[in-house]
C-alpha cells in the first residue's frame, strides 16, 4: 500500500469523514439509492427515474437549467448587493464602481445580467416544451398553473432588476412599463402608487423595485419552486413518454 493510499484510507476512516458522509462512494444499487435518499439536496429526486425521463432530447434540461440559473443569479446577486445602494444619487456610481473597483465586480455583473436574460428565455422554452409534450394534462394541471406563476415571477424579477443600474436604458424602459400600467382601467392609480411609488419613476420606484428584486420576489419564487418540484414527484414523476 502506497503512502497516498494509506492517507486516503485514514481520511475515509476518520470520525470527521464518517460523520460527514454516511455512506461509502455509491457503487452498487443499494448504496446508490441511499446516496440520493440520504442527501438533502439530491432527495428532491426519486431514487429511480423512468428511462425516457433521462433522455436529453425529452426535456433538454430546460427546467433544471432555469433553476440552476436562479441559483447562479442568487449567488451573483448577493455579491452585487454588498456594493450597491438603492438611491438615485449613488446607484449609478455604485455600478460604475462595481465594474471598475470591486474584485470580480465586472464579471459578476455581466453574469448576473446575461443569466437573467437566459433565465427568462429558458423559462419560456421550458413552458413550450411542457406544452408540446402535453405535460399539463391531468394529473399535472395544477403544476402547470404553478409554472405559469413562476414565469410571471421570473419576468417580474427581471423587470425589477432592470431599473437598478439607474442608467438611461433602465430609466426609460421602466417608464414605458409605468405608462403601460397607467392604462389599466379602474386600478391604474393604485397600481402606480403601490408598485412604482408615484406617477413617475423616481427614488420611490428604485427603492420598491430593489426590495422586490432582492427580497420579496426571490422568496415567493423559492416557495413556488418548492411546490413545483414537490408536485412533480407527487404527480408521478416527469410526464411522458410520448
Amino acid at each position, binding site marked *: 500500500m502506497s503512502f497516498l493510499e494509506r492517507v486516503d484510507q485514514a481520511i475515509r476512516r476518520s470520525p470527521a469523514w464518517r460523520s460527514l458522509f454516511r455512506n461509502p462512494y455509491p457503487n452498487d444499487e443499494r448504496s446508490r*439509492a441511499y446516496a440520493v435518499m440520504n442527501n438533502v439536496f439530491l432527495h428532491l429526486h426519486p431514487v429511480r427515474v*423512468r428511462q425516457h425521463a433521462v433522455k*436529453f432530447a425529452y426535456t433538454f*434540461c430546460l427546467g433544471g437549467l432555469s433553476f440552476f440559473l436562479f441559483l*447562479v443569479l442568487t449567488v451573483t446577486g448577493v455579491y452585487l448587493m454588498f456594493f450597491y445602494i438603492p438611491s438615485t444619487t449613488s446607484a449609478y456610481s455604485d455600478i460604475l464602481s462595481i465594474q471598475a473597483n470591486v474584485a470580480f465586480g465586472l464579471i459578476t455583473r455581466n453574469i448576473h445580467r446575461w443569466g437573467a436574460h437566459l433565465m427568462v428565455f429558458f423559462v419560456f422554452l421550458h413552458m413550450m416544451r411542457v406544452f*408540446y409534450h402535453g405535460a399539463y394534462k391531468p394529473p399535472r394541471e395544477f403544476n402547470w398553473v404553478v409554472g405559469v406563476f413562476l414565469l410571471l415571477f421570473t419576468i417580474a424579477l427581471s423587470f425589477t432588476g432592470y431599473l437598478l443600474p439607474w442608467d438611461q*436604458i433602465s430609466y426609460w424602459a421602466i417608464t414605458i*412599463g409605468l405608462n*403601460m400600467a397607467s392604462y*389599466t382601467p379602474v386600478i391604474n392609480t393604485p397600481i402606480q402608487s403601490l408598485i412604482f411609488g408615484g406617477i413617475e419613476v423616481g427614488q420611490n420606484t428604485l427603492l420598491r423595485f430593489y426590495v422586490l428584486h432582492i427580497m420579496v420576489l426571490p422568496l415567493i419564487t423559492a416557495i413556488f419552486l418548492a411546490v413545483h418540484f414537490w408536485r412533480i414527484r407527487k404527480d408521478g414523476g416527469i410526464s411522458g413518454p410520448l
Partner: protein
Amino acid sequence: MTDQKTEKESRVVLPVDPTRRTEIDKQRVPMSARPYRLLAMVKQDAVVRVQKEPDDTVMTWPHLLSIEFLAATVMSIFLLLMGLFINAPLEELANGNLTPPVAKAPWYLLGLQELLAYFHPVISGVLVPFLYILGGAFVLPFIDRANPEAKKPSERKTTVLLFSLFCILGLMVTFVGVFFRGPGYSIVTPLLPFFDNFTSGLHFAL
C-alpha cells in the same frame, strides 16, 4: 403452554364495547402483537411504479445526476465566457429630462410595446397580456380536457395549432419590436445602410 397463554392474553385487549364493534374494530390488533408501524402512505399512481414496469426505470445516481451535472457545467462555462467577453450594457446616468432617440422595454415586454403602435393602449397594454396570461396560460389545462390520454402533438392538432399560433404571433411582434424599430419608434431596417429613407443599426439593449 405458558407461552401460548401470554400470547393469547396479549391479543384480547380490545377496549371496545362488544355490542358496538364495527368491522374496523374487529380488524384491530393490539400494538404488542404488531411488530410494525405505519411509516408512509403510498398511493399506487403517486410514485414511480418499480414493480409494475421493472425495466422502465434507471437509477437516479448516476444516470440522471450525471446529465444534470453536465448541463450545469456547460451552462457555467457558457456564462463565464459571456461574462468575460461581453459586458452588460450601461448607458449614461438616468435623466428624466433627456428622452433617448428610442426607448424600449426589455425584450420580453417588447411585444406589448409593439402592439401599442397598432392598438389603443387598453387593448395592447392590458387586454392582450391579461388574455395571454389568464386565458392562454392559467386556464389552459382546464379548457383542454378533450382527451387526457392524448399526449402526442399529432393527436391534439387543434390545441397545438392554436398554441403555436399564439407563440408565433408573440414572437413576431417581439422580433419586429427588437430589430425593426429605430428612433422615435419608427420602422427601420437593421444593419442595412443602403436604403436612404431608413436608419440602420440595431436599436436595442439587453
